C-alpha cells in the first residue's frame, strides 16, 4: 500500500471507532481528496458508508463552525481539507469561536479534527505560496497543530485522545511521494539590513522546522531548532542564541527552512529580528530553503531531545 492509502485507512478506522462525522468538499468524488476518503465509501466507490459521512458545500467557514458546534455538544467530527490556504476562509471560526469557548473544560468537549492534505507544497501558482504552516500558526497559535510526514506518526497523532480542536497537516512531499527540485540559495538580506558579510563574521544557523509539539530539543553547532513557530518566546530564543556574539557586533543569521514561500516563518522571523535587535552593528539575514526531507534530517542530526 502506498503511504496515502495507510493514512486513509487510519482515518476510516478512527471515524468508525469514535463515531465521528466525516466531511469534506468532494470527499467522495472524483478522487477522495487525494485519496484520503477512499475507505469511507461502499463498494460502489461513491455511496458513503454512513449517513454522517458527507460532501459539504463550498463553505470552509461554515464547515469549521459546524465542527465546533458539534464539539461543544461532545460529538466528534473530522473535516478533510485539500489545501491549507483554504482554511484561511475559516479564520473567524478558528480564532473567534475557539477563543469564545476557551474556558469550557476539555473533558466536556468532543474532538474536532481537521486534516489538511497540502501544507508545504506551493504548487498551483503564486496564490498557493500561502500553503505554509508557519503562516497559519502565526495566526492561530492557540491551536493544537501537528505536522505529519509519516504514516505511523499520523496514525499515532490521530488516535491520541485529545479533546477539542486539532489540525493535522500532512506533508505533501511525503504523501505525494515526490522529491522537490533543489532550490538555489536565496539571499534576501538586501531587503532587510546591512548586506556586507565579513569573512570572519560568526554564523548562526537556525533550522526552522516542525516536529511533534511539546517535544523540546537542544542544539549544538550554533544551530537552534524552532519547534513551535507560534511561540511568543521564539524571537527571544533566537536572540539568546546570537547574543553571545554581540561583542563582535556582526553576525550572520541563516534561517534554514523547507520553504520557498515569501510568507514563510523565516521571512517573518528575519524581519522581526532585524527590527528588534540593537546589540549588533550589522546583522545579515538569509533564508536557505531546503526540501522537507533534508530539513527534517538536519533537525534530527543537529538536535536532541531535552
Amino acid at each position, binding site marked *: 500500500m502506498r503511504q496515502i492509502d495507510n493514512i486513509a485507512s487510519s482515518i476510516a478506522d478512527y471515524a468508525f471507532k469514535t463515531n465521528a462525522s466525516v466531511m469534506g468538499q468532494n470527499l467522495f468524488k472524483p478522487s477522495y481528496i487525494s485519496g484520503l476518503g477512499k475507505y469511507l465509501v461502499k463498494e460502489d466507490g461513491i455511496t458513503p458508508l454512513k449517513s454522517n459521512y458527507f460532501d*459539504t458545500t463550498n463553505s470552509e467557514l461554515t464547515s469549521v*463552525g*459546524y465542527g465546533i458546534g*458539534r*464539539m461543544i455538544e461532545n460529538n466528534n467530527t473530522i473535516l478533510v481539507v485539500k489545501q491549507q490556504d483554504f482554511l484561511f476562509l475559516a479564520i473567524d471560526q478558528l480564532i*473567534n469561536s475557539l477563543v469564545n469557548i476557551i474556558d469550557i473544560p476539555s473533558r466536556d468537549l468532543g474532538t474536532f479534527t481537521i486534516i489538511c492534505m497540502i501544507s508545504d507544497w506551493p504548487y498551483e501558482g503564486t496564490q498557493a505560496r500561502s500553503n505554509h504552516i508557519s503562516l497559519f500558526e502565526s495566526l492561530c497559535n492557540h491551536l493544537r497543530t501537528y505536522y505529519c510526514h509519516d504514516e505511523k506518526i499520523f496514525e499515532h497523532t490521530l488516535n491520541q485522545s485529545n479533546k477539542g480542536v486539532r489540525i493535522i497537516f500532512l506533508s505533501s512531499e511525503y504523501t505525494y511521494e515526490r522529491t522537490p527540485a533543489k532550490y538555489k540559495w536565496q539571499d534576501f538580506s538586501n531587503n532587510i539590513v546591512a548586506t556586507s558579510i565579513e569573512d570572519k563574521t560568526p554564523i548562526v544557523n537556525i533550522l526552522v522546522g516542525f516536529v511533534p509539539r511539546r517535544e523540546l530539543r537542544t542544539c549544538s553547532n550554533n544551530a537552534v531548532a524552532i519547534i513551535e513557530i507560534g511561540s511568543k518566546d521564539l524571537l527571544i530564543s533566537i536572540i539568546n542564541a546570537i547574543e553571545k556574539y554581540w561583542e563582535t557586533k556582526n553576525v550572520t543569521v541563516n534561517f534554514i527552512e523547507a520553504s520557498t514561500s515569501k510568507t514563510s516563518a523565516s521571512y517573518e522571523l528575519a524581519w522581526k529580528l532585524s527590527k528588534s535587535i540593537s546589540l549588533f552593528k550589522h546583522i545579515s539575514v538569509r533564508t536557505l530553503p531546503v526540501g522537507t526531507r533534508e530539513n527534517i534530517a538536519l533537525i534530527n542530526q543537529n538536535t536532541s531531545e531535552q
Partner: protein
Amino acid sequence: MRNEPRNNGRIIEQEKALVMAKIISDHMKTLNSYKYQVNSPFPIHLAFGHEKLAACVALKRKSGDKYILTHRNIHFNLALSSEEDINKLLDESMVKETGINNGVYGCMTMRNQKAGIVYTSSILGNNLSVGLGVASTLDKDNAVWIQMGDGSIEEGSFCEGMIFAKARKLRVILIIENNNWSLGSSIKERRNKFDLKKFAESIGCGYSLSLKNSSIGTMLEVISNARLNSLNEPQIVEVILQTEGGNIDSRRGYVSYHHGIVKERTE
C-alpha cells in the same frame, strides 16, 4: 362555544407572554439604572423593544431545544432562564464573579447553559455555523434557535450557512431581529433592501414575518408555526422591531443608540 376553551387558552398564553415581557423589561431597567455606577462595565447591550419576542420564543420552545445568541442576548437569557438564575444574569452583565458565567463572558457573550443557551457570540454572523453544528447533534424532535440581526445577514457566512443548513436538512429557526440599525447606520444608509422572503424561497427554506407592533397573539402564532415547520426545513423568522434607547440627531432624525440604553423608558 366550542371554541371557548381554545380561545381561553390562547388568551391565557398571550397574557403570560405580556407578563413575561414586562418582567424582562423590569430586569433590564435594573441594569439600565446601574450605568452610572462607579466602575460600571457599560456599555451593556440592552434590548428594550425586544421583550415580547423573547417571551414568545420562551413560551413556544420545546424541552431539549438549544439556543445560539448574539451580543444583544439579555432578553433571551432572561426569558429562557429560571427565576433562581436571574440575579446571576444581572451579575454577569456587570462582570461579577457571582455571574452565571463567573464574570468571564460579561454581557456580550453571556450564556446560561442550564437554559439551553450553548453559545453566544459578539462577532456578526459568527454564531450561525456553530448553531448548525449543534443542530446536527439533537434528537429529531428538537431544534436550534439561532438569533441574528439585520446587520449579520450582510455577512457572507449567512448565505453560506443557510445553504449548508438546507443541504444538511438541519432543524434550525433563525430569528432575524430587524431593528433597521447596525451600530449607528440604518439599512437605508448602508445598503439596498434585501428580500429575505425571496432568499429563503430561493434556497428552499421557510420564511415568516412578524411586523413591527404585531399583536402578541400574532407573534406567538408566527413563532409557533416556525418551530413546527423547522422539523421539515430550516426556518427564517424576520421580526421587525425597534430597539429603544435611541436619540435624535438634528441632521438625521432618530438614530438608534446601539446599546439600547434608555434615559427615560418610552411606553
